[in-house]
């Protein structure tokens, strides 16, 4: 056996790859070869580590040293210093925002050590294209345990007792869904399990990360689910915008089949099950269960009314159990360690009623105006404040937090006053937002809440399938009203009209896309009503976002006369000589904001 003394875990998640981590990996391999270290040192491409903001990332094991923001040209020095001489290179270690001292060990970095990893248990530790790496970390042990030592009913009972609820947004108890599918009558005994990997919520990328970093964890969850439910075939519906995720699934499926973990007679137990993969063709609504199933059948992805649930008559009218990627990935550890282990984490009490609490962890994608952007897995019940400030490192550029948006287009914007809210499925819903798939977008004082509501309504209007009137027409009209408010043409009564349309959509829309669509509008009206009123009554956008209500100006104290803004301006509205104050002509300026992005002195202001 080949034992290596050092393991270099190079992050090969999409984020790090776009920051050239593969070139860093190639440089490492070249230098290792050059110094004759190939026999002692292993270079392993891993899935996403979640700390995307500081990529490319390299973890050196067993030392536990965490390197960040590496460039290929840093590598010769790093290999010589660390690999040959054993001295970690200070300047590539992590430094917390606003501090000077470095933190060499990954386990000491606040972003990582507050996290509890269940769904992301293998992140950064395995090569996602090697089934051996998954097996070495107890992979397929849960499937083996379920198939050889438990009856399907016992497996189902464990999942029910664990209180696991759907991580895709709805929060429906997984065990109940499995049980309903299992009990639903089927003439020829056919039942399906389906994995929803059509992660469409803007601002959420945990499913992509799980598939890219640990595809076998999803497959193993599906095998266990199929065994419990009595399904013989599974489907994965993955969006075509995620080509790497698709590739990783295909590799994992082939490996699992070759190893006898999928197909006929799995692990020699007599149980047979296989999975096929479909690519979504780009439609947000296909994340909805009935639309997804219609699309799997080769039809247009339009939802249908759910008088009969999909667990009874879903795909091709057969009982179908659909869970999302993160839910499936949670299943193997629950089977391996038991329901009690899982219920130690989280809120509420699920011993009598699976709706009684939120157990386990949730993966959130942190984005927006926050120092540490990336993916974090935290226990249910953690406060927003802990996520944003302890893990996320606070607000970037010394600005003030305005709002935390959770749940994507179906969720809402929560104000600073609610930062101590303990996050779980039910508290977020009660506050007018929702867990959704776990997007968490942090906004600061430069973000306009009216513009942001308009943004989501514009998105939903484009994505509405148009089948039912409340959603199709409601969104179109809400968009029109919001647009006119942002244009400074809002009218008295517009806020009330938005509320009225919202109420109608909540009551009457056909699917969850429509019934949850008013959330961004209602939550911003609830918590930031004064911003709406300012737009309508004073023609003022306090964040300086709404084009029609602002002018760009140069801050005379900050302008250094570097000419960057003048060169960036597409309409030549900026004049000024080198090293002298520049001036923007408001009559020529088309408010494109190019100068604002170009200025490196924060001298362009919006008033």
């Amino acid at each position: 056996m080949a034992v290596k003394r050092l393991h270099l875990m190079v992050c090969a998640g999409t984020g790090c790859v776009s920051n050239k981590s593969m070139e860093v990996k190639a440089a490492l391999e070249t230098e290792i070869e050059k110094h004759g270290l190939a026999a002692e040192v292993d270079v392993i491409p891993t899935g996403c580590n979640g700390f995307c903001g500081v990529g490319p990332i390299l973890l050196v094991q067993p030392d536990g040293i965490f390197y960040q923001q590496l460039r290929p040209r840093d590598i010769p020095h790093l290999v010589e210093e660390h690999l040959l001489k054993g001295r970690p290179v200070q300047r590539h270690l992590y430094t917390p925002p606003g501090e000077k001292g470095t933190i060499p060990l990954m386990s000491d970095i606040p972003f990582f050590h507050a996290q509890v990893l269940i769904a992301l248990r293998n992140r950064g530790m395995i090569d996602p294209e090697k089934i051996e790496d998954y097996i070495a970390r107890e992979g397929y042990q849960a499937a083996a345990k379920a198939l050889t030592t438990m009856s399907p009913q016992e497996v189902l009972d464990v999942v029910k007792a664990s209180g696991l609820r759907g991580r895709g947004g709805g929060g429906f108890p997984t065990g109940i869904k499995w049980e309903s599918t299992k009990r639903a009558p089927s003439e020829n005994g056919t039942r399906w399990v389906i994995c929803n990997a059509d992660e469409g919520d803007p601002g959420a990328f945990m499913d992509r990360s799980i598939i890219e970093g640990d595809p076998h964890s999803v497959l193993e969850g599906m095998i266990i689910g199929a065994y419990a439910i009595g399904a013989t075939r599974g489907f994965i519906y993955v969006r075509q915008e995620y080509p790497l995720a698709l590739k990783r699934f295909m590799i994992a499926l082939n490996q699992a089949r070759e190893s006898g973990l999928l197909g006929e007679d799995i692990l020699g137990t007599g149980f047979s099950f296989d999975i096929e993969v479909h690519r979504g063709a780009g439609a947000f609504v296909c994340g909805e269960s009935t639309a997804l199933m219609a699309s799997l059948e080769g039809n247009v992805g339009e939802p249908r009314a759910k008088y009969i649930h999909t667990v009874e008559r879903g795909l091709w009218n057969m009982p179908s159990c659909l869970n999302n990627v993160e839910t499936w990935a949670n299943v193997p550890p629950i089977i391996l360690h038991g329901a009690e282990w899982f219920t130690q984490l989280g809120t509420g009490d699920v011993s009598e009623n699976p709706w009684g609490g939120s157990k386990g962890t949730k993966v959130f994608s942190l984005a927006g105006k926050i120092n540490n952007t990336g993916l974090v897995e935290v226990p249910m019940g953690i406060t927003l404040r802990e996520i944003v400030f302890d893990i996320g490192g606070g607000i970037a550029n010394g600005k003030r937090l305005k709002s935390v948006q959770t749940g994507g287009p179906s969720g809402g914007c929560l104000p600073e006053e609610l930062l101590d809210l303990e996050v779980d499925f039910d508290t977020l819903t009660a506050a007018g937002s929702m867990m959704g798939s776990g997007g968490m977008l942090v906004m600061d004082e430069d973000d306009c809440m009216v513009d942001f509501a308009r943004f989501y309504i514009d998105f939903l209007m484009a994505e509405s399938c148009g089948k039912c009137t409340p959603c199709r027409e409601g969104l179109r009209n809400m968009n029109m009203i919001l647009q006119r408010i942002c244009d400074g043409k809002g009218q008295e009564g517009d806020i009330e009209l938005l509320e009225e349309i919202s109420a109608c959509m909540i009551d009457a829309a056909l699917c969850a896309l429509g019934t949850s669509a008013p959330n961004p509008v209602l939550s911003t009206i609830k918590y930031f009503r004064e911003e709406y009123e300012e737009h309508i009554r004073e023609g003022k956008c306090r964040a300086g976002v709404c084009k029609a209500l602002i002018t760009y100006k140069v801050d005379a104290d900050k302008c250094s006369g570097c000419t960057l803004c003048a060169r960036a301006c597409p309409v030549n509205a900026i004049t000024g000589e080198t090293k002298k104050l520049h001036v923007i002509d408001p009559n020529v300026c088309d408010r494109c904001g190019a100068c604002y992005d170009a200025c490196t002195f924060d001298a362009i202001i919006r008033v």
Partner: protein
Amino acid sequence: MPVEVSEAQVHEIVERWQRSESFVIEMLQDVQHEARHLPRSALEQISREVGVPMTRLYHLATFFKAFSLEPRGEHMVQVCVGSACHVKGAPRLVHACERHLGIKSGETTADGKFSLEPVRCLGCCGLAAVLTIDDELHGHVTSANVERLLKRFQKQEKKAEVT
């Protein structure tokens, strides 16, 4: 670069997916990939070989964003306009791309080289704002540095054409 797909190719695609009705969206994706649009002839052939009506294929072709009935450019510039990118200046970024390429969002340049398309979330919110040129993803893009990015790509492209 051709924007056509031969009868043999379409036939091969249909066979690849076992002539199965449930895989017709996959077939359309493969045709779109080959021809950068869905030519009528290809749709008719799929309709014939798989046995699904043309109305259904047109319904699919106009429902999903991956499909287009007009040829798309040789290179796709996709600007993410998801929520995280929105707050990091994506609207200004789209504007800058439109200016540099001389087209509006959703259009293709006259020489057929570039299509500009805003997309809703590429799932790289940690790197916002992001855009992709073909399959390559670029993070932390702003209206100030996108021009250099596009110019560099266009230059490489010209070089590749000469050699």
